[in-house]
């Protein structure tokens, strides 16, 4: 008796579940049949007008502000012994560019941001930072704050949009953090118990804190290629390094790519109301 009542309850639950499933299926197919008409054209007018505002907002404002990400490195024109290893050295930079009256054939702008340089120093016994030892790696890392201005020559007459352009500019920067990270693999027979030893040297006395560079960008819309030329010396003479003589220069040229990854958008309320 007990067992059969339980069976009955189970049957009722099953039936309810089945009914629900049927209901869901009916609703599903019912909703599909109500959408069976053929919509040939549908347009939301607020979205058209919204685009007017977005487009106008981008171009009618006195300036255009965008944030770019830059990745670059091309180690050419370096010393034969003391040089940054190609492929292992790079620069990452994030900067915000403001262009005043971008719609003109010639416009001016400024950029500011933060950049990270990594020079992987090629290892050999003769190079002046090695101290006569071939390390596993030696990396010179810099964090800098660049600030610059540029002139933009627009090659396409397309109004307030970015279009095709060539920028010529110069940047000044402050290297607020410089570090030399030396990595070594200790002798396996030693009792240090480590596979790698990293030593970080901060406050390097042989690095110039201030610098400036020339820049040329050529691009279209949200991306561009750039060439940087560091106009001042990266190193200065220090009594502690290279016998007091200034270190040979690392590559002054950098070639890279810029990509816009953020655009400031004006928020729009009441999208449906015009």
């Amino acid at each position, binding site marked *: 008796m007990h067992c059969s009542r339980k069976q009955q309850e189970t049957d009722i639950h099953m039936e309810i579940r089945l009914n629900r499933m049927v209901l869901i299926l009916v609703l599903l197919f019912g909703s599909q049949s109500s959408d069976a*008409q053929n919509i040939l*054209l549908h*347009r939301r007018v607020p979205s058209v007008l919204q685009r007017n505002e977005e487009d*106008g907002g981008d171009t009618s404002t006195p300036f255009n502000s965008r944030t770019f990400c830059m990745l670059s490195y091309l180690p050419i024109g370096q010393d034969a012994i003391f040089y940054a290893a190609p492929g292992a050295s790079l620069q990452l930079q994030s900067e915000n560019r403001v262009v005043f009256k971008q719609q003109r054939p010639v*416009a*001016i702008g400024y950029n500011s941001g933060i950049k990270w340089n990594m020079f992987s120093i090629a290892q050999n016994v003769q190079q002046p930072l090695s101290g006569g030892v071939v390390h596993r790696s030696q990396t010179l890392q810099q964090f800098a704050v660049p600030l610059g201005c540029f*002139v933009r020559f627009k090659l396409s*007459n397309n109004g*307030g949009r970015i279009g095709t352009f060539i920028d010529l500019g110069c940047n000044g920067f402050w290297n607020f953090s410089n570090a030399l990270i030396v990595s070594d693999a200790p002798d396996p027979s030693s009792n240090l118990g480590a596979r790698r030893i990293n030593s970080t040297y901060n406050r390097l006395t042989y690095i110039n804190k201030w610098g400036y560079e020339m820049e040329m960008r050529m691009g279209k819309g949200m991306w561009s290629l750039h060439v940087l030329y560091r106009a001042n010396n990266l190193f200065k003479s220090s009594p502690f390094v290279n016998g007091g003589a200034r270190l040979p220069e690392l590559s002054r040229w950098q070639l890279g790519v810029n990509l816009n990854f953020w655009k400031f958008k004006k928020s729009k309320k009441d999208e449906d109301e015009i």
Partner: protein
Amino acid sequence: MRCLLLIFSFWLVQLVTFAQDCWVFLSPKLSKEELKTVCVQSPIGYSAWFHAAAIEQWDLSQPQPWWVDSTWCYTPDIIAIESTASFPIKDSLVETTDSSSTIYYAQLTMMQGERWITEGFSGRNVVIGVLDAGFVGFSNDSMFQHIIQEGRILDQYDFVEKDKRVERQSTHGTEVMACLAGKDRVQQLGLAVNSQFLLARAEQATSSRLVREARWVEALEWVVSKGAQLVTSSLIYSNQLYRRTQMNGSSLISSAAERAFLEKNVLVLNSAGNADQGPWEIIGAPGDAPHVLTVGACESNGLKCDFSSVGPTHDKRMKPNVVAKGVVFVSTGNNLSYEQGTSFSCPLVTGFVACMKEQHPEWTAADLFDQVQIASDLYPYYDYAHGYGIPQASYFFTNQEEEDSTQYEYFLDDVSEQLTEIRVAHWSPILADSSQNDELFYFHIEGHHGVLQEYWVAQPDEVGSLGMYEFKKYAPCIVRVSNKKQISIWKYD
């Protein structure tokens, strides 16, 4: 070296900050001839209507001389000529409707153009100004021999090269002329075959914004001064010339077109543009001017071509005004080709308006502007893709009171619900399966500001439903449904 750098920088800043391409509006005390004596820079164009000179790199940093009333500078550049694509000719699109076995294609029959022809109207005694990019092949084309032999090209001028030869640079104008007045022994492509024409080459493709504006305005002023009653232009000034926010009729070319209408009694017809598939999307100048008859493009079934630019204008006025077939036969140097673009819809409607003008010579530009919209198949319904629809010639030959338009009823299902169904009452599945199957239903929601919020074109399903829609979120609003025969209106409060 440093001094040179400083001087260069100063010049650059001056250049960037103060010098601009400008329309310089001249003092009434200064004549156009005197301008040469007082102005060092030579103007690249001059507008008599605005008494303004187009001057490049005008220095705004200095106090303006006595002969300058005001300056008008605005941004960027370019005219987009309608791009065209060729298609293989489809026999199914050819319609023969005349006892004299002249072929009229759907581009005319959609406007009931054969009615104008059979009633004997062909734009006689109407002078039409045609502004375009070039008329290469015009004089040798058999489609235009009736015009040339009868001396109905009153004048022509190239505003780019400053001479009287317009057959250069582009065949676009020839194709436009084919849709306006093309005819040979076998076929007729346009309606204004007996009109008189003024041809102006007004497009300088590789020049700056100011030059292009100047050429168009000069050409417009020229055709009007030569006696044009209608002006057709298939040049669209859009994405690289202006911003979307400027599409409110305020540009100089739109102002000039408006001035032609208001002060010179000349109706300017302009194509809407082919930008709907691109980022620009909306109607360009001078189609944004309030009294320019802006013509969009539609398919054979009356539905807007996917490329035809849409309205409204930035100040939320209805555009385009009407539509005409946008995939058409044109003639390019004795070859018939099948091409598309609002460039060709515009001259088709211009031919239609020329016939109206012949029928009612007393009508002003304002009358023509109103009547062609009233004669369109969707009127008084409208939306921002089709305007008032396709002009219909029968409107001008029938007594409107006799027309019986009650053929369908529509109802909205249970207006209290969030989702509301539009249903065609008395919908017959038999009819739906046969002759009425292709019938389009147009419906839209108009917000309480009098501006459309959304619009649709749909075909009903087998039970007559046009679908479920969320109208209530727009309340208070008006919902209109039209099938070109009847309009039903519901108000949501």
